[in-house]
């Protein structure tokens, strides 16, 4: 009897110690920080006509795969090493613990309201987490190379090999599957009740939320493409410099052209203009209805991160380290900011810019 108790105490003690170590190493399944994102805008739109000033610079723990500004105080960072954590934009430091649900890169994610959906192509996992409840809602295992994720109402859609899988967003339960004849080349683009995705053959495939296929659009784009959607309009550019603008709802090609040099970042659609970075430092604003070149700006070198728009200002991140602000209507340079290192990503906050460089430093301009 005595030895049984001793054995029990030792086992319990060991388990407790293990839990403590796991908790200390951030392996418990939550961020330990509650946020309610249901009412707050995800990113701001203050006009950045006046050059913002550097507020702080700080080192992140590992290379980020994505940085999402959640509200005016917080940004969410997902890393190549499978970590998820929050960053306090006011203090310039990590907020709460580092949660590492996967040991491999988080390859895709999607934020919808208070929920974060994320997947790992290597681990073959897709999970959902609720910021306000501070808990993991569900996790689907043993998927074959899960890809991009999108959420419409109560449905979560994700790519798995050549299939679009629809599931219940609340519990991840499988609902339906639709196969594509070829591989996916992009994430999902959603407009109203239509979900669209580019394939490696350069076509735009459209589906209803019930995964019924609509007439695909043959666009002949290269599989290395970048696209963005605004309203019903989707604009895409590829590594051969081809630029297309389509009406997603109507399934119509509105405009197609070929620009000088490759397009490595998604074009921006704003009002009547499509703005695109291409080649070695060119930024062109084109009216897709008339095909007229509205303005063109010549910068220095590669642009491989998305252009941003803040009111009437277009923010262009040149990979070599210069961020240039252009007047949306004229293309005139308003200001520029130089970082010392190659730009990895940037995002707009409610009143500034959050920049990550290749040395894993975050810079906040406000």
């Amino acid at each position: 009897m005595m030895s049984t108790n001793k054995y029990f105490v030792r086992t319990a003690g060991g388990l407790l110690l293990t839990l403590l170590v796991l908790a200390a190493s951030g392996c418990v399944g939550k961020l330990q920080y509650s946020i309610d994102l249901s009412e707050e805008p995800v990113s701001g739109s203050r006009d950045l006509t006046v050059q913002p000033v550097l507020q702080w610079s700080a080192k992140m723990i590992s290379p980020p795969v994505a940085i999402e500004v959640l509200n005016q105080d917080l940004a969410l960072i997902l890393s190549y090493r499978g970590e998820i954590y929050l960053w306090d934009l006011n203090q310039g430091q990590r907020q709460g613990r580092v949660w590492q649900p996967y040991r491999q890169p988080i390859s895709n994610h999607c934020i919808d309201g208070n929920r974060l959906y994320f997947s790992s192509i290597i681990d073959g996992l897709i999970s959902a987490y609720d910021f306000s409840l501070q808990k993991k809602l569900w996790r689907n295992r043993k998927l074959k190379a899960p890809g991009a994720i999108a959420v419409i109402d109560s449905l979560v859609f994700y790519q798995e090999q050549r299939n679009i899988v629809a599931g219940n967003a609340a519990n991840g339960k499988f609902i339906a599957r639709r196969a594509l004849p070829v591989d996916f080349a992009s994430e999902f683009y959603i407009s109203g009740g239509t979900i669209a995705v580019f394939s490696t053959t350069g076509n735009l495939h459209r589906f209803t939320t019930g995964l019924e296929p609509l007439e695909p659009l043959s666009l002949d784009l290269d599989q290395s493409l970048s696209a963005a959607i605004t309203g019903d309009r989707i604009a895409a550019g590829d590594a051969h410099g081809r630029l297309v603008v389509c009406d997603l709802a109507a399934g119509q090609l509105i405009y197609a052209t070929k620009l000088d040099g490759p397009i490595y970042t998604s074009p921006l659609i704003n009002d009547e203009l499509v703005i695109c970075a291409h080649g070695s430092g060119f930024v062109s604003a084109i009216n897709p209805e008339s095909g007229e070149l509205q303005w063109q700006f010549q910068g220095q070198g590669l642009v491989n991160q998305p252009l941003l728009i803040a009111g009437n200002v277009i923010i262009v991140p040149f990979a070599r380290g210069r961020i240039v602000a252009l007047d949306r209507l004229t293309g005139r340079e308003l200001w520029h900011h130089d970082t010392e290192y190659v730009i990895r990503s940037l995002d707009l906050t409610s009143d500034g810019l959050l920049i990550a460089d290749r040395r894993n430093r975050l810079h906040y301009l406000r």
Partner: protein
Amino acid sequence: MNKTQSVKYRGGLSVLSLAIIVLLPVVMTGQFYFGRNKIQYEDFDWQVLETEHFYLYYYTGEEQLGQVAAYFAEEAFGELELKFNCTFSRKIPLVVYSNHIHFQQTNILPYHIPEGVGGFIEYIKKRVVIPFNGNMFDFRKVIRHEMVHAFTHAKISYVSSDIGMWESPNFPLWFTEGLADLWSGNWDSQAEMVIRDALLYDHLYPLDSEALYRAGFLLYKEGQSFLGYFEETYGTDDIRRLMEDYWRYENFEQTIKGVTGKEFTTLMLDWRLALKKQMAEPLQQDFVIGNGENQLTKTGTNVSPALYYDHLGNQHLVYLSSRSGYTDILSQSLDVDDRKKKTVLKGERGAEFESLHITQSGLNVSRDGKLAYVTKSGQQDVIRVVDLATRKEITSFSHPQIISIRTPVWSHDDAKIVFSAQNFNGLADLYIWTVDSSTAIRLTADIYCDSDPAFSPDDSAVVFVSDRGREILDGGTDLFILDLATRQLKMLFKDEYQEKYPRWSTADQQLIYFISDRSGTPNIWSVRISDNEPRHIVQLQQLTNVHTGIHDIVPLAADSLLVSSFQEYNFQIHRLPLSEFSVSTPIDTTFSRSTVKGWSPPTIPTTISRKKEPYKLRYSLDLAQTAVAYDPIYGVLGGAQLSISDLLGNRYYHFLLTNTAQTSGDFLGRFNFAVTMVDLTGRSNLALGIFHFANDYFDPYQAFYFERTYGIRGGINYPLDVFRRLEFSGTFWYSYKDFYFNNTRSTVLLSNFVSFIHDNSLWYYTGPIDGWRLRLTIGPTIDLKKSRLHNLTGLIDSRYYLRIRQFVTFAQRTMIWINDGEDIRRYYIGGSWGIRGYNLYDIYGSKYMMFNQELRFPLAHSLMLNFSRGGIGVSPIRGALFVDAGNAWDNERPDLIGSMGFGLRGLFLGGVVLRLDIGRHTDFKTIDRDWFVQFFFGWDY
């Protein structure tokens, strides 16, 4: 000695050897026990030009070249940034040398740089180092090639670092070099020639085969060809994806499958099939040069044929040949019945004939039998003139400002030699040397690359090749005639191709033969010059359609030529009767002379060029490592090493810090440290260091003891030439020894060592096969406290390799080591590298002598285990018959003991030599009946 003692001994040695590793490089940087020397002939005045993405290092005299290099580098950066979808903000150091001879003096790589190296990137400090060969198109291509390496490395490392991989994966060499060739220039006729030959003679190796890694240049071209096919089939983006997505897959083959959907082996078959289809049509039309009585050479690379008539009027062929492994000048009769080869000159074995630049320099024989050839001698090339009848050197030419010399050609009056040369600034121009004088006249002086000159039949003009007629740098070259009286320059014709090697016909003075790649590979064409026709119309005629290609030509008679042609991955010399070819109809080519204007050297805009300043010594890290070890006798041993150097690799500082304290009280007193400064700037390599060591040691003569030493050490290496050097080193130090039995000793010692080293050996895969190596060392240590000799060390290590046939060598080694006095070292000479058949520790003493004889011969091509996913094995395999003799002793010299037997040597995985010896022991009176079998690793002695 029993086993326990030997373990302790090695344990005790570990700390000491760490110190020796740090101290000995004092004078050994770039030099080793043997080895050739890198000599700093020039004292370059280095400058730095900062541009947007580069720090450009150039020296006074090559300012223009520096500007052009900066332009090419920035141009490449802009283009490759887009291709790779990757950039970097750290500036790349780009070091430019105005010629290859200067480039070979760089200290950025510590070892001797072979002539075939056209530039390199060093990955620790990401330094790109490029020589200029006189041709701007080549210069641009090499800069781009190295920049592709820089981007490939950055792209792969970025992804690895993002994913958190400990180190970046090694992409196959064929991929990195093939990509560098693919994205640095177009597929040219040289690449076409190499791939056609590989297909024709069935040595287009699978990309994952070991044989390809030993094939040198073929690896580059196969890689380029495969990736060209890949890019055409799947697009540039998929090449980029290979570098972006590799982390998703287990290996490179899986990555290829993941990106393309096809197995790598299937893709390779598709590529080979595409190549074969592409070659099928030209092969039907083309002439395949092959074995037969017209083939004059068969082994090695044989180029630069020249004709020589002896006093009886017999025709002889004189040429450059690598059949021995070195480059020699050979001669042979053109008579079919007498093809015996005679050696005119043995090159690359001594300081006067350091290099004969086999495929570049050329040679020529005058009508009166004087041979003119080029050899590198010290800091520059020299033209040497030898009387072929007496084999004696008559005269020579060199000039301090002329560094590299190519293609000397005699005038028809045997009085002058025209040649092309690169001066100190790097410019490649034409010169005429009047052989009786010591001066040369410069015919051209500009940025354009002028080469391959030859006199007209009346010696009034020179025909040559130049890129001066191109509007842009496109790699094309044209033929020009320079009138020597009026200095008027005339372009013969203009096209988009590469022309080279013009030679006037011996039978028709209006006809010039030349080599052109108009037909896809280099072949012989002729151009008829006539003053009666309008000057902008010339008549061209293709004379040969050799499937692979032709390197150089000598008109033999009206209807035949001597050529060196590419065949079975080598150049061979053939007599080529033109009647064997279906000669094409002459074609009139029209060009407008008004459009003939040369390109301008590009210079970097001032908006990109930021500042120029003299080079300053700024040190950065080369090596930092720490180690902690536990030894049951000595406890925990730990230490750190650090090495820093300047960007040009001229100055090094090595630091060592360890502590062997066993108790806290010992901590301060048991610090071991050494600081060594090495200066490689000048011809003499200098080193100076201080040290302090306090350790427990075991020595077979003194058992366990504690020793504290501190002092200073200095050294000088003076290279006499590339093959010979003198080494001096001296150490002045205090030594305190505690033998633990109330027995201590303190003294002040001074050691001096002098060594002479010679090495001109020629290496094969498993070890040396020709030449000789010698090391003589003597070193007294003097006890200054007692004013007497403390100990004396002397050694003779001589290794001679007698070549019997091309791959059969008799190797002889004599080693005599003597160590006498106090604090002496014990040597162990058993084992695979000593006296074979004995264990390492079986034969030992403070003195020894050893004599090894070995007959080395080829045995088998390979022994492979082939699996479905590739093979693994040993290749080549060589045999050895050996007799070893020797012994070691402390006081009285014992009788000789030895062994005899046979062995096998094989190269495993392309880099490790496996050694198996089977034999019998002997005391040279009787031979043991038992056989021993000994297996080890390492090169032959």
